[in-house]
């Protein structure tokens, strides 16, 4: 086990880079499989100096479920926003509100902010310097407290589980 950790410190990153390389060249030949494997092994070594506190995925199955849910929400978000754009714009109720954060990992917060931007009617606008609040702008919101509870329950709690923070 320690041997593996010494020689392959970031297995998931390596696997991701390997698949990324094969997708970029768009062919699966022996040469590219080898080259991709070398890149996937070497790049995390060079990059980990720039990323001192990488997140640890504790619940991969929850992560997959989360990704599926986010993709579904992106699809519905597009339809909802399309309807709002084409409908009467004078009736929209835009709002700025603050979402209190319960996470302390920068990567998890970044993922939550990106998710909020991609899903129905909300864009994350700023993170407070102490990482305790996320400022969100919503296109059309009825009840701000309900919107906050929805984001916390639907996106933040699975992210907390996944990264254990």
């Amino acid at each position: 086990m320690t041997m593996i950790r010494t020689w392959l410190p970031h297995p998931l990153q390596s696997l991701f880079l390997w698949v990324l390389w094969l997708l970029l060249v768009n062919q699966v030949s022996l040469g590219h499989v080898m080259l991709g494997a070398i890149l996937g092994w070497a790049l995390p070594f060079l990059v980990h100096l720039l990323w001192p506190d990488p997140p640890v995925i504790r619940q991969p199955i929850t992560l997959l479920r989360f990704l599926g849910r986010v993709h579904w929400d992106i699809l519905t978000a597009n339809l909802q926003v399309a309807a709002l754009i084409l409908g009467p714009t004078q009736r929209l109720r835009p709002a700025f509100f603050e979402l209190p954060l319960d996470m302390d990992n920068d990567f998890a917060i970044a993922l939550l902010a990106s998710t909020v931007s991609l899903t129905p009617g909300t864009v994350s606008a700023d993170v407070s310097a102490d990482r305790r609040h996320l400022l969100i702008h919503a296109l059309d919101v009825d009840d701000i407290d309900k919107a906050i509870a929805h984001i916390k329950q639907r996106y933040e709690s699975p992210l907390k589980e996944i990264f254990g923070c």
Partner: protein
Amino acid sequence: MDVWIELLISTCLILGASFALIGSIGLSRLPDFFMRLHGPTKSTTLGVGGMVLGSLLYFSSRGEGLSLHEVLITLFLLITAPVSAHMLAKAAMHLKLERSSKTQGEPWEQ
């Protein structure tokens, strides 16, 4: 090429193009800057997604093997769209851009 596949590809392209168009209509219709931010971050992801799916089906159905590198476009777009929206929102708050009078809540001082 099979007619059904061609139909499927055309549907993907038209759907994608319609969503890109709706995103652009949003840019001109919505009342203030912060609301206009919502168009490009949402409707365009599905717009590009539809066209990418069409391209993927087209190049995979020509008998030269599977073509999956279009998936990367979607991946990179999903990573970059929220970041650019975030930076635009921060810049807008810094410049104290006017917002619709009905906006509840306040943006932060930058």
